[in-house]
């Protein structure tokens, strides 16, 4: 904790708590997850930034989508995302969640992940180095500070559109809507 930020802590303790205690849900998709073990262990030590993997989505507030998302994985991602308590932040890791990457013409891969769940930031590259995770984390701090990491608010606001997109690609969802969907 920086001593210069004491005023900020007293003004908005909740916001500072969200900034410096980002617990990431340990959810593996694609090849990007191979960069996560080195970044949480001795070599790069994500814990000094307050980033820690948790085993359960209920305890987490950061969701790293680490690599290409197949249609089948998307269903698990949506369920995990909806289980996380608000406020929650999502970061797309690698070029595949951004636009499909090297799977740009695959029939079974999601090309634009932000059509299905809201994304707060992207890490470009194939693969991004573990340092890029920390650049993303510090950037996420700035976004949280300026109230710009508002993915969970967007999800609530445009839920009917997100839900329609999800149902379109997954051919129907077997769970009820998270938020009430207004008619029309």
């Amino acid at each position, binding site marked *: 904790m920086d001593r210069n930020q004491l005023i900020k802590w007293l003004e908005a303790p909740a916001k500072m708590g969200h900034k410096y205690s980002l617990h990431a849900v340990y959810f593996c998709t694609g090849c990007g997850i191979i960069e996560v073990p080195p970044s949480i262990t*001795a070599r790069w030590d994500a814990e000094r930034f307050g980033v820690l993997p948790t085993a*359960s989505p209920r305890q987490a507030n950061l969701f790293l989508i680490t690599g290409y998302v197949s249609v089948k994985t998307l269903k698990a991602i949506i369920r995990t995302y909806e289980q996380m308590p608000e406020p929650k932040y999502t970061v797309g890791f690698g070029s595949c969640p951004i636009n499909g990457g090297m799977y740009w013409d695959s029939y079974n891969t999601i090309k634009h992940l932000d059509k299905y769940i809201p994304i707060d930031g992207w890490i470009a590259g194939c693969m991004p180095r573990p340092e890029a995770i920390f650049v993303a984390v510090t950037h996420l701090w700035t976004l949280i500070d300026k109230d710009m990491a508002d993915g969970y608010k967007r999800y609530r606001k445009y839920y009917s559109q997100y839900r329609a997109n999800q149902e379109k690609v997954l051919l129907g969802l077997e769970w009820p809507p998270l938020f009430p969907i207004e008619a029309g």
Partner: protein
Amino acid sequence: MRIVWLFLSPLIALVAGVLLLGLSRKIMARIHWRYGPPLLQPVIDIIRLFSQRSASHGILFDLGIVVSLAGSLIITLFLPFGNIAPLSGSGGMLVILYMMLIGPLGIALSGGESGNPNASIGISRNLMLAIGYEVPLLMVLLAVMTRYGTISIVEIVRVQQASTWSIASWPLVVSGLAYLLVMPAMLGFRPFEVVQAPQEISSGPMVEYGGSYLALVSIQHALSLYITISLFVNLMLGGSGNIVIFLFKMLVVFVLFLFVNAVFPRFRIEQAVRYLWRWPTLIGLIGLVLVALVGR
């Protein structure tokens, strides 16, 4: 004055427990050759968790945590803390023996309500481990009670202050050894980290807790760390007439078991119970027989 300490001593226990949690993360990081999180990281986590939205799973889910937290807060009143002992004159060791089971029991009630299979496995492991360490612990406590002829912890601390620490006196050294062997299980440290086991059963009973529920569980965890170590210091290391020396003794014991935690992998549950019912129980039984033979 006594009323003030009645309110102040759970607060001190809470602060000490949370600082111990932060210190444990820092020390573990240094053993792994990492820089580690700031010392106040558990405080930041708790602030974050309290400000998050959380989902309840029923009335028992809410009440179980409250029961567990209340049980832990009450024990802190019965434990002498340096020269301060708000209620320990009236309670003694038997009250603590009863109340110590309320912590895991409350978590079990609350986690069972969530209906998650991982939580059920975690709860069954938690209670099995509790049965595992309660048997040797009971023998150790019986030996201490027989040796000093009293159930009052204040009295036991006073006798130790006058003569020597229990762990350094002749027949009780055997019981002290048994107590040292069960301490990692009581603290939930490796090699007995079977209850949470994040890699196996995704943090066990805690799997469905989020937001303020998880914050209360972490506070309860901090308190239970404080209670376990403080009981050891009072019974075996002679307590203290001074708060600072008492906290220093607690710190030494905590760091010692943290080193054990850092280098060991995890037992399976049946290995843990087999170990607990073999070596600490055997040594505790020998200690009890020795105390009974040598007498007071």
